[in-house]
């Protein structure tokens, strides 16, 4: 299951993909809201992983 962590580790490293202005959300360029969205994704993935694996440890 821990392979899921590739998502929060990989997403912030895709610099060429998110280095862009459009589309904007609430006036915030893509570059900025994408990275903030990554933080939310990281929380969701890790919380999911913890809930699923906690009984096995």
């Amino acid at each position: 299951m821990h392979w899921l962590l590739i998502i929060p580790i990989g997403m912030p490293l895709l610099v060429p993909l998110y280095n862009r202005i459009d589309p904007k959300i609430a006036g915030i360029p893509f570059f900025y809201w994408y990275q903030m969205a990554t933080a939310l994704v990281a929380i969701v993935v890790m919380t999911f992983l913890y809930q699923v694996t906690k009984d096995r440890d």
Partner: protein
Amino acid sequence: MKLSNHQVEVGVFVVLLGIMTLAGFAAARWRRPAGSIHNLEEWGVGGRAFGNWVTWFLLGGSMYSAYTFVAVPAYTYGIGAVGFFAIPFAIICAPIAYLFSCRIWSVSHARGYVTNAEFARDRYGSRTLGLFVALTGIVATVPYISVQLVSLQALFKTLGVQGDWPLLVALGLMSITTFRSGLRAPALLSIAKDVLLVWVVLSAVLVVAMSGGWGAAFDLSAARFKLTPSPADGLILGADGQLGYLTLIIGSALSIFAYPHALTAILAAKDRATIKRNTAALPIYALALALMAMLGFFAISEGVVPLGSNFAKGVTGDLNTITPELFHALFPAWSAGIAYAAIAVAALIPAAVMAISAANLFTRSIYREYIRPNASPREEANVSRWTSLLVKFGAAALLLLINPGFSTELQLLAGALVVQIIPAVFIGLISPWFHRWALIVGMLAGLGASLYMLYNTPQLSATGKVVVAHFGGSNWPLSKFGLDTHSTVYAGLLALVLNFAIVIVLTMVLRLFSLGVGADRTHPDDYYADADDPLLERLDDLLDGLPRQPHGAHERHEEPVAPHGYR
């Protein structure tokens, strides 16, 4: 009599800071165990007993320091997108910590370590390696503490207080509370700090919403970046800036796993589940940091300028004053006072945790290892107490002695140095394959290469003129290797690549000839040990032949420590 805005700001600030100091002083009694607190497990890692909430606040308090809240908006204000690197860096730290922090917590719990140098020593069976890891950690931590004090200095400047005395008074008060209460003081204060911080972030977001929103802030910033001649600034990265951004993220994330202070907060957690839950929630801080970073753009659109600036004459002024100046300009005075208190405490907490970590490194890997092998737990705690004082005021002296324009580069330098212990302390968690001698040679080569590259990095003005000849930045141009590109790479990461190359090649050679292979003194089961694990006690009985290490917070009160098996 009506108080001026300025007096209200200073008043609120001083009152809040006074309350915090008293709380820190009382922290010695907080969650105090029945036995004595005069040993390093209690003073240095809070008795390894912090639960979910305290761990969460302490981790946030020691990793997201005032430096991030002051320097990151200053960065985005000055050059735009590049300054945002702190956010992806903070995010990827969490999943990596989720994967590996439990291992270092378990082995430290099982073996009684309070620092990563003790782990490196035992994992590779080399006191010398432990010594080098400890020295690198201490040398890198001192300038990192200075960086925290830079933020505090910028704050006092905005408040209009002249001279160095307020800095020294604030540091002195915090030092006394830490001296008395150990890690409990910054832990308790980080809870108070985060309450203030939530207030600051919420009111900042509210202010932005009421004065035009983010759209206007970004549009006006884009217009200003277009006017400057520098190709490096802008709302997104330039074509040559992407590689530098990527390596800055990776290099900074790695340095977090090498700095001693992040580990101290991890080791203070009470069990493995606490660590996992906390690392899972850690990116919430990254969101707060992102909002703070975007305030740099808001400052541009609101026409806030740093203290001492004179753009007509081309003088930038002190960029670090941007965050406090912004609060001063846009918040009501009492609210600005709260924000200042939050920044000040956010500077003092990491400084305290870092000083504790550096002191623990000295006590465990230098003092007990080389000076007084039979030091009692009480003596260890006392040595750490005094060393932490020395470290803090050493950092203050460093800050006051050097050229102020130089101070922001201290953090880059510290990061590039500390990351060189990654092969020993981080890869060591996964495998003991590396050879101890190879690790030492690689680390020295990496440290040398880092220093060489940073020394030869000049700081350029927007027009390409050399402003500062040495230590002017942390990114190394690849063109110096004869590559036809304008891209740059984080110098610490380049040196780390060299470090790894040397470690791997030398390890293969030394292992081929079976020369001086060190004995791994940890047990595979140590890496899974949990609190209240019956396995722990059983293992100790089984491993009777090995020197018995004290383990667990409450196992070592006043009995003398058995010497290690190295001499």
